[in-house]
């Protein structure tokens, strides 16, 4: 099948004549305004310095590439001698390479390289002089902590690579960089610890990435479905992180990390259900407090998913399960509300999702107003008007607040919470129990790269429970050499 016109240049070789090469380049790239072609003469040989405006550092191009070349003085220089001299006797950049095909040359140019073409030589020399605008290293927006590092990944994949390398100064830390996708040719880096992860797992991940048939990759969400397990599951077998320290901890446990150019969210795989309840602060606090917080998160998950549904089920189907005084108060409060409890809950949660979406999409300067409006509308006016009851509002608020404790499970908690309300409202405790069994089965069925998602709870791994049921002190935790390959029932790799 003939390749589309946009991709026919990839295997096109460079010619020897400079003028023809420049014509070819203009034909491939069209009349794009950001292409800069500067003809220069070096030791009497015609050359051209090519780069994209805004992608390179003008200062670096001038001082470290152009000036040394212009000041070059070689006796009886011809094209070949000039090429040899530049390649062997000059260091114009730390990252230098030769390319002979237009596909690679253009990819280099679009990655912030400056390229020199020499008349009579069918090989281009590329110098890494990146100077495009990048965001500085900031605290991650989604993974806050108190006592840990405040550095987060940025959109530049090579900067992210250095953030990991700076923390893990071991030769066993490996990076594998390659471009993927047809149009965007996005750089991705697969990182792993060579002594902790089976080679076949790394190869599997690289194979999947290189086999992607996407046209463009603009975020980790584009790649995630292809790296996730095959079985349909509500829970994802891969996780994302903005934190280099979290990434390092995961790599030490024998996982594989994927850094993607253009997004600060790195992918870690495979991941376990229990990890959603772990935070970096757990390892900075004293063990007793860390354990306390962890169980708070377990309770928060239960409250976030089941509390509204259980309340609706108990109030509608099993009032005898609630104590008499409380039941009287609830009945009094519900008298004013015209709607069925189940529909009250559904309306509250739908309104909450609308306000939450609005708060995210609006500019930060206006976002605060959404909270006030939302709080007034739902919190005060709706209750005063008798549309919804105070107990239902209280239950919903507790459930929503509990879900904030687990941002990585927010999607699942939101959907299951609504399902629990509908199940409880339609079938009472029987419906809630069936839904609970479905959720449990969904979690237990999930598996990624040979690792059951419910590990180390099921199959039970006593050694790994030291960081799930409790948080052992570092005297034990830091020396046990745990990797996911050691989990009971894990069938990873070779």
């Amino acid at each position, binding site marked *: 099948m003939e390749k589309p016109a946009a991709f026919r240049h990839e295997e096109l070789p460079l010619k020897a004549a400079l003028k023809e090469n420049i014509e070819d380049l203009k034909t491939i790239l069209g009349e794009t305004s950001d292409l800069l072609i500067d003809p220069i003469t070096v030791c009497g040989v015609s050359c051209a310095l090519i780069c994209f405006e805004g992608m390179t550092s003008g200062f670096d191009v001038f001082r470290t590439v152009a000036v040394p070349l212009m000041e070059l003085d070689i006796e009886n220089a011809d094209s070949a001698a000039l090429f040899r001299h530049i390649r062997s006797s000059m260091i114009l950049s730390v990252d230098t390479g030769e390319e002979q095909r237009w596909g690679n040359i253009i990819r280099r140019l679009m990655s912030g390289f400056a390229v020199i073409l020499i008349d009579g030589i069918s090989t281009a020399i590329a110098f890494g002089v990146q100077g495009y605008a990048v965001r500085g290293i900031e605290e991650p927006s989604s993974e806050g902590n108190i006592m840990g590092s405040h550095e987060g990944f940025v959109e530049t994949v090579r900067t992210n690579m250095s953030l990991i390398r700076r923390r893990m100064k071991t030769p066993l830390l490996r990076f594998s960089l390659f471009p993927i996708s047809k149009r965007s040719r996005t750089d991705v880096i697969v990182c792993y610890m060579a002594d902790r992860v089976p080679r076949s797992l790394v190869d599997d991940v690289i194979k999947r990435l290189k086999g992607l048939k996407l046209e463009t990759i603009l975020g980790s969400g584009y790649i995630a479905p292809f790296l996730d397990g095959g079985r349909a599951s509500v829970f994802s077998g891969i996780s994302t992180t903005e934190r280099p320290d979290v990434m390092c901890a995961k790599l030490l446990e024998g996982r594989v990390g994927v850094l993607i150019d253009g997004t600060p969210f790195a992918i870690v795989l495979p991941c376990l259900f229990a990890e959603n309840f772990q935070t970096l602060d757990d390892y900075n606090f004293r063990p007793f407090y860390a354990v306390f917080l962890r169980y708070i998160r377990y309770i928060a998950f239960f409250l976030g998913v089941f509390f509204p549904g259980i309340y609706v089920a108990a109030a509608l189907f*099993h009032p005898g*399960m609630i104590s008499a005084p409380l039941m009287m108060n609830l009945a009094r409060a519900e008298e004013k509300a015209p709607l069925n409890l189940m529909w009250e809950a559904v309306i509250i949660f739908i309104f909450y999702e609308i306000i939450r979406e609005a708060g995210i999409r609006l500019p930060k300067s206006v976002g605060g107003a959404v909270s006030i409006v939302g709080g007034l509308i739902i919190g005060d006016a709706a209750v005063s008007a008798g549309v919804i009851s105070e107990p239902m509002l209280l239950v919903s608020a507790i459930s929503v607040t509990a879900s904030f404790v687990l941002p990585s499970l927010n999607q699942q908690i939101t959907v299951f919470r609504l399902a629990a309300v509908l199940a409880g409202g339609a079938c009472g405790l*029987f419906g809630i129990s069936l839904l*609970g069994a*479905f959720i449990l*089965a969904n979690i237990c069925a999930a598996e990624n790269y040979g690792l059951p998602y419910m590990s180390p*709870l099921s*199959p039970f791994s006593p050694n790994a429970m030291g960081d799930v049921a409790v948080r052992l002190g570092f005297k034990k935790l830091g020396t046990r050499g745990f990797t996911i390959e050691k989990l009971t029932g894990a069938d990873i790799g070779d």
Partner: protein
Amino acid sequence: MKNKSRYISAGQTAVMISAFALTFLTTAAFDDCGAALSDALSAVLLTALLAVPVAAVTSRYKGSITDIIGKFAGRSSAVIAAVLYILYFIPCAAHLIRVHSIFAAERYFDGVRPYVCIILTGLVCIYISGTGVETVCRMSTMLLGLTVLTLGAFALFSADDISMPQITPYPLKPIPADISSAGLFPFLAAAVTSMCIVSGGAEERTRKGIYTGIAAVLAGVCAVILLIFAVLGDFAPLSSFPLSDAVIYASRDMPFRPDGLLFTLSVLSSLCAASLLCACAGKALGTIFPRLKGAGVYTSAAAVIFSAVCEVTHISAAEEIFSSIIYPVVLLGLVPLAAVGAAAFAGRKKAVKVQ
């Protein structure tokens, strides 16, 4: 990517066997404490005896009973064995779904006919069975956790209501001639028979879970029966679901009635038990049709339909197959012995050829 992990641990098998006993306890009625204890003891002893060939075969050879038969006696023999297991597992699952749905409809879903509960339970059972035997076994950890939580809640808040003098030794009654018609034996037999197929994902230690589970069942069932009669006393024989009533009565002074926890536990245990049987039937169906995907879905759908039909038409086909002693004797005794015989014969044939 297809699921690779096929590991099933000893603890998981023990808990899954216990799930069948829990289903029995939540749905059974007891006429007399002594008779109930006798029934439990005799059921455990008989099942332990019937489980010996299974444990012996699976400790010597890797794989399920049908795999072993297929390896040594040929595919046609494996197909026959698989058909026998399917014809037992599906009615058993149908009966389990039915008895639990009757309990749920009567106590926790007022105004609804049991066949509605059968359909709702069946939908979840179809999903769980479709995920495979390993998934059902992995649910055992949560089942164990919920059991511990429930027991803890009751022990914490209901202990005052059970005064020690009420728990007196009950004289055991003579073992009835036909223990298979009701009681614990059919549940335990179904549980252990499923191990013939579950052993396909098991390691050597897993086979020990069979007897661990049987021992746990004996201890647990006897303890619960004693507690029921300690709490309800002479009212126990009058109750259709004495365990549920005992829990409600024991917690009558609590601000919140915790029997909802017990009900959730009963739903989960009955779903696990029924789904395990359907998943095992599905695995056996896979022996007959190797290219068939999602066999557990078909077998569980058949069980649900069978259960609903039995409930609506009031026929007792599923109950009769479930309660019969013949099927467990054949499937637990004769079929594994046939597997051993086939293996021994194949071994001798190989030795003769070598000579």
